Structure formats: structure tokens, C-alpha cells
């Protein structure tokens, strides 16, 4: 029972902050609400016995991504940009589409017979590491290359062309 209540509270936090993240007029607020959503999700990860991922979620997402986004907002002078320019007028179709999609997905989930959550001790980081570095080592290495490429790509993209002049 307590678990259900906890789940309800976290879910409500997540959905609420998520909704605010997509509806806030101020971009900075949006980013901050996104951070709140991500933290709530991290809490759910803990509930799903994935502490390592919860930690990563907070470190990478909330620490890294949100910060980056804030930088982005600042750098592009959007901090105080408020109002219509941020939000397009076509809100009703978007709401309908979102609701329709949710309805369909919910129906799909309801129809599918899913295995119940197995109550087990949280997965140890050691095991996760084994899975990562034994079963999926190629993907892991590919990911590292991807990150390197991302880094180089970001530098190339963001570099000012007039530096040479």
C-alpha cells in the first residue's frame, strides 16, 4: 500500500512537472521543469531496482543535459524570450494527436499480457558492468566512438568560422 502511494506521488510529480516543462512560456522554466521530471524518473528507477541508472540519470541528465540546455538558452539570448514566439498557434491538433497516441498506446498496453514485476534485490553494478562489457562490448565500444565523434562534431559545428580571418 505504501508502495502504491509512493508510486502515485512520484508519478504525479513526474507528470506534473513534465506537463509544465512543455507548457511553460519561459524557456528557462521549461528547462527547470524538465530537470524536475528527470529527477522524478530517477526516483522511479530506484523503485525499479536500478540504482545505478538512477544515479546516472541524475548525473548525466540533470547535471549534464540540463546545464547544457541552460547554457544554450543563455547563449542564444532566449532567457527572457517570452510569449507567442515560443509557442506555435497549432495547439489543439497537438493536444488531440497526443491524446490519440496515448489512447492507442494505453489500449496496446492493456491488451498485452505483461509479466509482473519480479521482486528481487536491486541489480548490482557489478552485474550490470558484466552485461555491458561482456554481452554488449561491441555496442559499448561503438558508443565510445560515437561520443568521440559527437565531441568533434559539436566542436566543428559550434566553431566560429571567422576565427581564421
Amino acid at each position, binding site marked *: 500500500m505504501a508502495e502504491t502511494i509512493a508510486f502515485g506521488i512520484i508519478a504525479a510529480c513526474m507528470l506534473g512537472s513534465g506537463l509544465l516543462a512543455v507548457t511553460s512560456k519561459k524557456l528557462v522554466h521549461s528547462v527547470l521543469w524538465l530537470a524536475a521530471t528527470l529527477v522524478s524518473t530517477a526516483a522511479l528507477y530506484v523503485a525499479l531496482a536500478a540504482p545505478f541508472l538512477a544515479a546516472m540519470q541524475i548525473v548525466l541528465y540533470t547535471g549534464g543535459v540540463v546545464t547544457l*540546455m541552460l547554457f544554450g538558452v543563455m547563449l542564444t539570448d532566449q532567457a527572457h524570450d517570452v510569449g507567442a514566439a515560443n509557442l506555435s498557434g497549432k495547439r489543439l491538433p497537438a493536444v488531440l494527436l497526443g491524446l490519440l497516441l496515448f489512447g492507442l498506446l494505453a489500449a496496446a498496453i492493456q491488451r498485452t499480457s505483461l509479466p509482473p514485476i519480479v521482486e528481487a534485490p536491486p541489480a548490482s553494478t557489478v552485474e550490470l558492468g558484466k552485461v555491458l562489457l561482456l554481452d554488449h562490448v561491441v555496442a559499448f565500444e561503438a558508443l565510445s566512438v560515437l561520443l568521440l565523434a*559527437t565531441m568533434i562534431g559539436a566542436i566543428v559545428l559550434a566553431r566560429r568560422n571567422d576565427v581564421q580571418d
Partner: protein
Amino acid sequence: MPTSAYLLLGAALFCMGVFGVLTRRNAIGVLIGVELMTNAVNLNLIALSRANGHLTGQAFALFSLALTVAEVIVGLAIVLLLYRSHRSVLTDSAVEMKG
């Protein structure tokens, strides 16, 4: 909690992301929507990993996490570039790909 609860939660979050992507004109706003969507996906992955009692789902979530970071970095770089060339980050202003 049943697995479907997590999945429904993920679906709801995903649809919010969809809504965000559709309504934001600001490129960073769009990125926020995308983040919500990937987050929903990660939630599903972990929930199903738990349900199946196998860690591969978590490993995937981890990869997805890293990919998201990469995506945000490149996305923001593009936003900066867009801002520099168009003095605006509104997605409507970049229509050079018009057929």
C-alpha cells in the same frame, strides 16, 4: 506495482513530449520535448528489464542515456549555428530544405 502502470506512465510522458515537440517553435523547446520522449523510453526499458528479470534492458537504457547526451550536444551545437546564421532559434526560420 504492475508493469503496465510503469508502461502507462511512460506512454503519458511520451505523449507530453510529443505535444512539446509539436507546439514549440523554439529549437531548444523542441529539444526539451525530445528529452521527455527519450526519458519515457528509458523508463519503459527499465521497467521491462525488471519484469523480464534480465539486465539487458538496463544496459540498453544506459546506452540510450549516453546517446541522448550525444544528441543534446549536437542538437545544441546546431541551435547555436542556427542562431548565428539566422539570429533566431525559431524552427520556422530554417526552411532552406524546402522542395
